[in-house]
């Protein structure tokens, strides 16, 4: 048993080294650094929404009739909507369902998909067949359409939309991690662990999964953006967050009727989605450049 800790050192050293490497590259790349700052800023705003929003009560839905369709001004930088609610506050409060929930969706999708992929790739044979056939079925649908159908079946609302997105997204991670695992299975540190009789579950948990973190991270970073778009889409269609709660996609939809005169109602929330997704995509590009094995050829 004494040999096991010594073996598990290899991936651990690798991952801390990778982490520092990633940080140093991001800091040197102005675009990636700016993206990271934007993302962190938006997440902080979402977390401290009640403290940051100028009118938090209007943000979560209280109407304020005298301010109906207020033009942007010093007191209301982004103006007010048809119920007189301060739009800046709505955008800030809307960051929770529109930004934090999609991040949670991706995390859950990884937690479900990655272990299944590792098991399928490591075990091979019948287990692999069963897991991958199920995965293929879910991947046979356009993800967003599947999410729409599931949300409709479960009933509209933020929570069900999030569940639907998790169900539609985990198979991508199963497929990804399975591929990585198959290439890891032949590596010496795995064979060595097998040779000294380490249990399969321990090998998967301690030796395989830690080494799939980099590709998962690249995929997840891009997926944060994609799922934010998907969640915004569900909310826009009326399947996600229900009024009067704030949500970026829902705000764009609510402001649609007024775009010809009061264009500011729907443009701010849409801009928020665009900026965050752009930041995740730019960061994802940088991460892909770091981890893309082809550059070492």
């Amino acid at each position, binding site marked *: 048993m004494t040999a096991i800790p010594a073996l598990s050192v290899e991936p651990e050293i690798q991952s801390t080294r990778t982490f520092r490497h990633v940080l140093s590259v991001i800091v040197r790349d102005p675009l990636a650094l700016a993206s990271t700052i934007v993302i962190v800023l938006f997440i902080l705003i979402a977390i401290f929404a009640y403290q940051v929003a100028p009118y938090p009560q209007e943000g979560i839905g209280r109407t304020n009739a005298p301010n109906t369709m207020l033009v942007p001004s010093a007191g209301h930088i982004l103006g007010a909507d048809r119920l007189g609610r301060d739009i800046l506050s709505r955008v800030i409060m809307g960051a929770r369902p529109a930004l934090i929930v999609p991040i949670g969706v991706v995390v859950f999708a990884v937690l479900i998909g990655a272990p299944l992929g590792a098991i399928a790739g490591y075990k091979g044979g019948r287990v692999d067949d069963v897991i991958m056939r199920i995965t293929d079925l879910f991947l046979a649908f356009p993800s967003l359409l*599947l999410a729409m159908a599931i949300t409709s079946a479960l009933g509209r609302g933020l929570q069900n939309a999030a569940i639907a997105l998790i169900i539609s997204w985990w198979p991508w991670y199963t497929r990804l991690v399975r591929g990585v695992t198959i290439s890891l299975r032949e590596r010496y540190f795995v064979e060595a662990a097998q040779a000294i009789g380490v249990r399969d579950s321990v090998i998967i948990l301690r030796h395989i999964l830690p080494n799939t973190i980099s590709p998962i991270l690249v995929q997840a970073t891009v997926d944060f953006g994609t799922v934010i778009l998907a969640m915004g889409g569900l909310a826009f269609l009326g399947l996600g967050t229900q009024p009067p709660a704030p949500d970026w996609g829902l705000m764009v939809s609510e402001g649609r009727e007024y775009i010809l005169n009061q264009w500011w109602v729907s443009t701010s929330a849409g801009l928020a989605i665009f900026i965050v997704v752009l930041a995740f995509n730019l960061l994802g590009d940088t991460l892909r450049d770091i981890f893309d094995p082809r550059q070492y050829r």
Partner: protein
Amino acid sequence: MRRLEFILRRLLSSIFVLIGVSIIIFFLARVIPSNAAALYIGPKARPEDIARVSKQLGLDRPLPVQYAIYMRDLLHGDLGTSIGTKRPVLTEIIDRAPATLELLFTGMFLAALIGVPLGVLSARWQGKPLDVAARTISIFGVSMPAFYLGLLLQILFFRNLHWLPLAGRMSTALRFTNPIEPITNFLVLDALLTRNWVALKDTALHLVLPALTLAAYPIGLIARMTRAAMLEVLEQDYIRTARAYGIKDFIITYLYALKNAISPTLTVIGLTVAFALTGTFFVEIIFTWPGLGLFTVRSLLNVDYPAIMGMTLFAATAYVLINSIVDLLQAWVDPRISLK
């Protein structure tokens, strides 16, 4: 012979996937909603009505029997009746498909027309301002929500510039003054075929903004993929040899290199067609485009489950077919694939 085997194997696996897809859809529509019969009648359903409709719809039978009946009807082309419109779902799909397909084809044509050259130029001038500009366009394309881009385009081209119509497929007045004779139900094509020039201009102008909105995401993806594939090809020895022979740069880039970069580009175009299918839902909502998307979204919101089942099955089938076609095309372009 090997190629024929590859095609057959690919088609066979598609059929298995589609059977699985039908089971998932059946499960979604019949098992998860607690009382489909109540949904069928509406909010004022009385218990005795629910019992009657349950029996009528066969919801009281065991699930495997229900699935068998559903599959039997499906194979006879019966997708059930929409609760919302009280018309057969298949009829709704057939009536609305041309509008969506017109939008989808135009959008994807635009996407390929813009995306591929963008990716090629980007790779040819790697690191130069042209590359930076092309990559900016492509990353903006994949980061922009369609439902937001559509609004921005409406604000710019309708509200501010008055260049293009706000929504719909055709101006209401023209429906009466210059009606289009339906041939294919692709309005632009029909107007062209019947030499209805006034209607042609009108329908074409109506198509511009929706098609552009739909194309934005595919343009980004196609440009990225083409760039990556081209960069890989441009490094190879035969390109260097061609350069050494003094062959014109234009011919090397567009003939020699693009030919070998086309396989990954095809894959991504296929994938984005499938992606754009969902994209049409949003575009149709924004531009009140009377196609499948408007119908599907209304069905989703009203839990019109026969319509949802029909549309999901239709879209998933289209998705699986497109992916199979892309695989076969790839095997045709690159024979190494079918030999694997």
